[in-house]
């Protein structure tokens, strides 16, 4: 395999040039600026990484590069020149012809972008055939070639499957094939790997990079993950509040970021906490086996000990049974066999059998604060309910405690009359934390609590959780697939794979080699800031494969 470094690719003439772009979005009955005067230029064969927190306008700029504004958005000012053509001046029909044939788009959620009722192959060649670029037969042959180049398994037949019959990572690659089918000059990738597990992410990143290099396609790569953008982009542009903060070649940006904001972005991943061994255990899980609808075993013989006042990180990819474990502990799913003891007493298996006081002592925080907060309840209602329900607080005493809790989560009391829809993602997650804290719990189960948040907000939430642990001695079970989060918060680690515990122990023990094979795969798949990381990793894995074959 020819593996050229992305930094050394040949670049051609100027392909895309955006000048002084302004985009507005309509919400709360008025127009708000989303992008405020961004300049951007891209040469043929160049990959530009757009990075920033959510609301920075990354995706909007990505779409604007195709001359497109989402419904409810409008481009108010600026010019977009694509290969010398003014995209904003031309008719919508002409623009549409350009999209799909010369400019393509790969969305964040491939699962939501494919039509579940049609086969992958038909969808891959749809634009080619519709634009009359090739006959259906020729397009089909070409699509299979693309599948092969993208390292999809069974490239000859995978196209005949339906979207739900392939995995998320394969679907994301199929979508890249769809974008590539017309051999566009420019592809816009909008967070294509954000929804994937780390182990899958590596494969998709490698495939995307390879094919973009082979066809010398220019690309705009939108992401909030610095380590990913370091692997993919020749040049990085940091955005904030719709403005450009900084723009530089990848290596230069990584080595010496010029702006403070960029440096804070860089610093996030360096959060780390020294582990503290625990004296006694709060929760002991013994040989739990659990299954849904009495059939497929999702957890097999799982035993975990949770130390008091410490954090256990449960790590694994999706489908490893992490969330099922949380359901068993909370009593939502009663195990087939095994037992759980909490603070020295055996926990009843189902929710109904558990007394109110036990329910109070085990609380849960969810991944998506949007779904975990009732959209019709104000912040005050959300936080005061557990106080009233568990502790019988009413009136002034309740109000006072709500105030204290708001103070603990570092939010102002003016937020109390807000509905969840009027809060940012980080604020919503803080409210969820306050709701859990209101019950004075001993154990909080955190199910991927930071994975839906931006990196800077993630760091704030993690810091908050750590501070609360120090102050109140609460134990955490921290379910996550992100190793950086584990480093930041865990004392102990449990690695899970396909419903079984692969390894468990203190953080340093697990994170220092030698690793169990699965732990090795998981750890090595976590992107690092080094722009050569992906290249090196692929070489190492290739060597091992060749070594194993010999």
């Amino acid at each position, binding site marked *: 395999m020819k593996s050229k470094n992305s930094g050394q690719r040949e670049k051609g003439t100027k392909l895309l040039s955006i000048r002084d772009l302004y985009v507005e979005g309509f919400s709360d*009955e008025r127009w708000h600026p989303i992008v405020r005067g961004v300049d951007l230029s891209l040469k043929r064969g160049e990959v530009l990484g757009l990075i920033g927190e959510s609301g920075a306008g990354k995706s909007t700029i990505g779409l604007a590069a195709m001359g497109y504004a989402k419904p409810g958005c409008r481009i108010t000012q600026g010019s977009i020149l694509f290969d010398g053509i003014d995209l904003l001046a031309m008719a919508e029909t002409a623009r549409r012809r350009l999209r799909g044939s010369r400019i393509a788009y790969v969305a964040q959620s491939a699962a939501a972008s494919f039509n579940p009722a049609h086969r992958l192959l038909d969808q891959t060649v749809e634009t080619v055939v519709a634009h009359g670029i090739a006959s259906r037969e020729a397009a089909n042959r070409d699509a299979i070639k693309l599948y092969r180049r993208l390292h999809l398994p069974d490239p000859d037949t995978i196209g005949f499957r339906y979207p739900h019959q392939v995995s998320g990572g394969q679907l994301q690659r199929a979508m890249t094939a769809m974008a590539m089918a017309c051999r566009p000059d420019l592809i816009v990738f909008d967070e294509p790997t954000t929804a994937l597990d780390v182990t899958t992410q590596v494969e998709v990143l490698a495939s995307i990079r390879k094919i973009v290099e082979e066809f010398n396609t220019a690309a705009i790569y939108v992401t909030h993950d610095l380590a990913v953008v370091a692997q993919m982009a020749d040049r990085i542009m940091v955005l904030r509040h719709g403005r450009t903060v900084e723009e530089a070649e990848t290596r230069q940006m990584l080595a010496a970021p010029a702006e403070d904001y960029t440096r804070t972005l860089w610093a996030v991943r360096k959060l780390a906490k020294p582990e503290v061994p625990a004296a006694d255990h709060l929760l002991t899980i013994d040989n739990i086996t659990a299954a849904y609808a009495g059939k497929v075993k999702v957890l097999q013989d799982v035993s975990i000990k949770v130390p008091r006042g410490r954090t256990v990180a449960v790590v694994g990819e999706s489908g490893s049974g992490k969330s099922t474990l949380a359901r068993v502990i909370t009593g939502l799913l009663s195990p087939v066999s095994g037992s759980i003891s909490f603070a020295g007493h055996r926990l009843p298996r189902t929710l109904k059998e558990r007394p109110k006081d036990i329910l109070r002592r085990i609380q*849960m925080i969810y991944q998506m604060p949007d779904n975990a907060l009732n*959209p*019709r309840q104000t912040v005050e209602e959300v936080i005061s309910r*557990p106080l009233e329900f568990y502790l019988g607080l009413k009136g002034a005493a309740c109000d006072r405690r709500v105030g204290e809790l708001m103070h603990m989560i570092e939010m*102002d009391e003016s937020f109390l009359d807000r509905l969840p829809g*009027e809060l940012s993602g980080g604020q919503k997650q803080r409210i969820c934390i306050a709701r859990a804290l209101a019950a004075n719990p001993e154990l909080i189960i955190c199910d991927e609590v930071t994975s839906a948040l931006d990196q800077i907000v993630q760091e704030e939430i993690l810091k908050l959780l750590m501070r609360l642990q120090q102050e109140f001695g609460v134990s955490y079970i921290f379910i996550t697939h992100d190793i950086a989060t584990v480093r930041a918060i865990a004392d102990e680690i449990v690695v899970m794979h396909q419903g079984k515990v692969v390894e468990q122990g203190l953080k340093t023990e697990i994170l220092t080699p030698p690793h169990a094979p699965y732990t090795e795969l998981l750890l090595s798949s976590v992107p690092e800031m080094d722009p050569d990381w992906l290249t090196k990793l692929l070489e190492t894995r290739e060597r091992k494969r060749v070594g194993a074959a010999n």
Partner: protein
Amino acid sequence: MTSTEHVVAVSRQRRTRASRVKTALKKAPFSAWFGIVVILGYVFVALLAPWIAPYGETQVFTEAFAPWSQQFIVGTDQLGRDVLTRLIYGARNTIGIAFATTLLSFAVGVTLGLLAAMYRGWLDQILSRVVDVLMSIPSLIFALMLLSIFGSSVTSLILIIALLDSTRVFRLARAVGLNVAVMEYVEAAQLRGEGPRWILTKEILPNVLPPLIAEFGLRFCFVFLTIAALSFLGVGIQPPTADWGSMVRENATLITYGDITPLLPAGAIALLTVSVNFVVDWFLHATSGLRDEK
């Protein structure tokens, strides 16, 4: 907390539910305003019927089928009763009964529908299949049959139509309830140990209210039309109680003489139905988050 969050907190004014409603009303289109005004007018007339009406509800004058005049603004009916008076009392009876019926059908349908959505399993199966059976019989014919069995009293009219209509409400409530019952905030409430009553009324109901309120408006129209239809067929509201459906039937012959009097109660029915639909349309549009592209 970052500084941006503070900025957001200050720049946005506090919004209470009352002020939300006020801003929504301010932006309501003309059709919605028209609907609201008409409905309020009807309610006003219905509530104050004895004071507004020029004569008594069953007061009979000597002249039957009197033409429009100073004394009888829109004439008298087949027995010599003032039509305007009957129209005003008709508003009270028809709307009142329709409203009570709709309310009852929603109380039954929403409660059972949300319970089915919350517990699923066998409860859902039993309720849904019973509803399927009830819905498989054409409702007007079913209503006619039940009314002839139990007699056409106002009570049995309300109960029968409410029962038949609650099947449709059940279906809607169950469908929208299912979407909400699987949300994590409902799970969070279960984990907290909340009882079914709290989960039903505080967690699920507020989130399914917009489609239910919209449906309430539409159901109200249908109930209203059903009552009018039953009255027209002679098994609805019984004389001498005034209602618009039977008024159309009793004076229908006048139309052959070029007198438009029987069209007045029909027009009253039509106007109210259209107005309710205007308001429902606007409400649905405002709460569903649908937005015209601008």
